[in-house]
């Protein structure tokens, strides 16, 4: 029992450790991919091929002077980045990242890979993500700067607009799976159609996946939806007045939120740890035999994150009114129609 508990703690700590380092790795990945796409090398000087650049970045951020504007609200100015990064970490709590494993026979009973398994897991993720907006809004308001205030205002407007489509896309998956536990939703995607195509929800819900992904990008304030920090218009948006560690927490929260969006997309649409590629390969049997589904899971997350970065350096930023129009007049109706069609199909096929 105690060994089991210890193992669970180790799993939780591993998830935490992964998220902490993910932001550093993603910064490097982003700069490298950007460099590649712009036909240059990207960071190259620190370490072999610039691979140690994250250490230099972190050291730089830690050693900067911490500034606070004179008219800033003392408490909220400090609270905002902490809130942003806390909610980012907490949202990952109910995301499972692997099937049951005994850690190569080390444990007596199988252990579920994932910090917590709650029977309303999807809602927990959604509830905590929707708390994340407060960090950004408070940062914008407490800075006592008009650019930051505009960034915060935009963030709140954008996030409540896209949260609806986000939730509606998830609701369709909830109906298909007949459960709100993320683990049960992943496990309902086991098996193959015609023995070849894995039973992923992306094949039943292609529109739902597209809506989820667009809304997810908007929720995490990434390009082409990065209006809260639009450089050309708002200097740096909500975090204009931040420096040093407090500043560092915002990009960190953003990258962790990206990982969470990618992880939820993998779990709900791409079959989680079931099946590596969208068709059956001999590799799948091997993965099942070795029981290393979590490697598959992280490979898929990596793929989605690469797509995230790829998109950032390919698509130009929208205009703000276009963003609002798109969210309310296209994305929301599309997601509602998708939900209704899914509901009708579920009712018809397995009533």
């Amino acid at each position, binding site marked *: 029992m105690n060994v089991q508990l210890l193992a669970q703690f180790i799993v939780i700590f591993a998830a935490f450790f992964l998220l902490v380092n993910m932001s550093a790795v993603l910064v490097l990945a982003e700069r490298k991919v950007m460099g590649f796409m712009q036909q240059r090398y990207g960071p190259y000087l620190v370490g072999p091929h610039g691979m140690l650049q994250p250490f230099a970045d972190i050291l730089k951020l830690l050693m900067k002077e911490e500034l606070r504007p004179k008219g800033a609200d003392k408490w*909220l100015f400090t609270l905002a980045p902490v809130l942003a990064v806390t909610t980012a970490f907490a949202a990952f709590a109910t995301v499972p990242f692997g099937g049951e494993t005994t850690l190569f026979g080390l444990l007596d009973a199988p252990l579920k890979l994932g910090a917590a398994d709650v029977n309303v897991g999807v809602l927990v993720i959604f*509830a905590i993500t929707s708390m994340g907006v407060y960090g950004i809004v408070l940062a914008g308001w407490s800075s006592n700067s008009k650019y930051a205030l505009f960034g915060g205002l935009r963030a709140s407007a954008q996030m409540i607009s896209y949260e609806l489509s986000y939730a509606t896309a998830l609701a369709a998956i909830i109906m298909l799976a007949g459960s709100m536990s993320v683990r049960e939703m992943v496990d309902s995607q086991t098996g193959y159609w015609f023995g070849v195509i894995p039973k992923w929800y992306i094949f039943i819900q292609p529109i739902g996946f597209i809506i989820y992904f667009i809304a997810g990008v908007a929720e995490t304030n990434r390009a082409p939806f990065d209006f809260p920090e639009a450089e050309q218009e708002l200097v740096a948006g909500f975090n204009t007045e931040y420096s040093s560690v407090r500043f560092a927490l915002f990009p960190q929260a953003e990258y962790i939120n990206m990982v969470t969006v990618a992880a939820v997309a993998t779990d709900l649409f791409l079959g989680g740890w079931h099946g590596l590629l969208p068709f059956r390969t001999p590799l799948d049997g091997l993965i099942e035999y070795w029981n290393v589904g979590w490697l598959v899971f992280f490979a898929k997350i990596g793929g989605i994150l690469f797509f995230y970065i790829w998109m950032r350096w390919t698509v130009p930023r929208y205009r703000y009114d276009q963003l609002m129009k798109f969210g309310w007049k296209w994305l929301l109706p599309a997601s509602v129609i998708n939900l209704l069609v899914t509901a009708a199909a579920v009712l018809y096929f397995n009533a």
Partner: protein
Amino acid sequence: MLESLLFYVLSGLAVGASALVIGQRNAMYSVLLLIVSFAALAGLYIGLDAPFVAMAQMIIYAGAIMVLFLFVVMLLNAPQEDAAEWDRTHPLKRPGFARIGVVLAVLLVAELGWALAKVMSLGAPVGGRADGATISSVREMGRVLFTQYSFAFEATSVLILVAMVGAVVLARREGDA
């Protein structure tokens, strides 16, 4: 033991934060304290074995509605209320309004007392069901909502729709198509 401790901590937090909401002169702090109060309430729901209600509380109240509140407070960028100015000029400080306020407050207290007395006389925990099904089952909750309480459900949604249409009509400027 742990459960009752959690109950007292969360209720204390909820009541304390709610009291502070009224006590703040800065509207921003009021909104934030209200969020704290809602979060504590969600914790209490989890203690009652109703995780779905707790998450709905977090998503709808603490998430969506409070973001709107915050948005409005930021948009107006309300300065801190000046106590003396408030006392002198605010319309709600006129004696007539004060009297209505007193009547409403007495009504609220009476209502609260009545509700509590009724809960006391139930003798069984609220939300418990004879057949052992707990309120935590989302499926069961949906079924009850759309059969037994369908009228109340539909009436509420129409009410919200009316409020929404009203807001749109009020917000529309002259000359807009």
